[in-house]
C-alpha cells in the first residue's frame, strides 16, 4: 500500500468518526437542552410556590379583605374590580412591561348566614400555563 492510499484510508476513517460524532452530538445537545429546560421549570415552580404562598399568607393575616391587604405584598398589583394581577420579567422581578409571567388573585365574596365567605384563587402563570395555584377561604363575621 503506497502513502497516497494510506492517507485516503485515514481520511475515510476520520469522516466516519465525524459522522458518528455528529449523531452523538445531536442527541447529546437535545438532552442538554431538555435537561436545562427542566431545571428552569423547577426554578420557576419553586418561585411560583413561594410567591403564591406569600400572597396566601397575607390574605390569611388580613383582618378584613379590603383594598389595603395588597399593601403587605411586595407585588405591584394592578387592580381590576376584584381581580389583582402582578407582572414579572423572565428573572421573576416585578415589571410592568412584561406579560408572560404573572400572579393573579381572583376574589369572590359569598354572603352566608351571619357573615361572608371570601374566596381567593391565587394562580402563578407562565406563558398561559398555570405553574401553581392555591385557593384560600376566609369567613368574616358580620359586624
Amino acid at each position, binding site marked *: 500500500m503506497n502513502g497516497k492510499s494510506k*492517507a485516503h484510508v485515514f481520511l475515510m476513517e476520520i469522516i466516519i468518526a465525524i459522522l458518528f*460524532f455528529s449523531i452523538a*452530538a445531536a442527541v447529546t445537545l437535545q438532552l442538554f437542552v431538555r435537561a*436545562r429546560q427542566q431545571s428552569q421549570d423547577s426554578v420557576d415552580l*419553586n418561585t411560583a410556590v413561594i410567591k403564591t404562598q*406569600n400572597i396566601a399568607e397575607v390574605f*390569611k393575616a388580613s383582618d378584613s379583605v379590603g383594598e389595603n391587604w395588597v399593601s*403587605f405584598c411586595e407585588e405591584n398589583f394592578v387592580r381590576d374590580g376584584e381581580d389583582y394581577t402582578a407582572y414579572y420579567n423572565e428573572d421573576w422581578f416585578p415589571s410592568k412591561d412584561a406579560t408572560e409571567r404573572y400572579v393573579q388573585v381572583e376574589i369572590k365574596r359569598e354572603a352566608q348566614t351571619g357573615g361572608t365567605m371570601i374566596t381567593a384563587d391565587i394562580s402563578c402563570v407562565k406563558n398561559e400555563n398555570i405553574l401553581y395555584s392555591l385557593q384560600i377561604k376566609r369567613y368574616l363575621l358580620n359586624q
Partner: protein
Amino acid sequence: MHTYPRKTGGVFTMLVLLLFSVCSLLLILIGYHVYRKIDDNMDENSRIRSSFYYLSNRIRSDLTEDSAELLEANGIQMLSLDQSSGDMELYSYVYFYDGAVREQLVTDPSEFDPAYGEVILDAGGFTMVLLGNGLLELTVETRENEAVIMKISLRP
C-alpha cells in the same frame, strides 16, 4: 484525472482532525456548563426551600401573634422561639451570623453565643420584620445577592 499534491491532502486531513477535536471540546464545555447550571439550580432550590419550610414550621408551631418578638443582642437581630416545657426553661433563637442563618438552643439567655449556633442555611444576609396583623416577613439574600422573601401568618 486531476490529483491534489500530497502535501495538500495531508493538510486537509489535519484540518478535519482539528475540526473534530474543536467540536469535541465545545461539546464537553457545553455539557459542563449545562450540568453546572442544573446543579446550581437544584442546590439553590433545595437549600432555600427546605430551610424556609423548616423555619416556617418551627415558627408556626412555637409562635403566636402575641408571643412573636424580635430581639437584638450585640447588634444581631434574633427571633426568639419559646421552647419551655414544664419546669424546664429553654430558649431558642434564630439569627444571622457569619454568613449563615443559625439557630441556638440555650437554657439561660446569658449563655447565648452567636458563634455556636447550628447552621440552617448559608446566605448573604437575613432579615426578619414583623409587619403587623400577625404577619412575619423573612428575607434571605442568597450568595448570588438575590432576595427570597417568605411571609408567615402567625396564629392568633
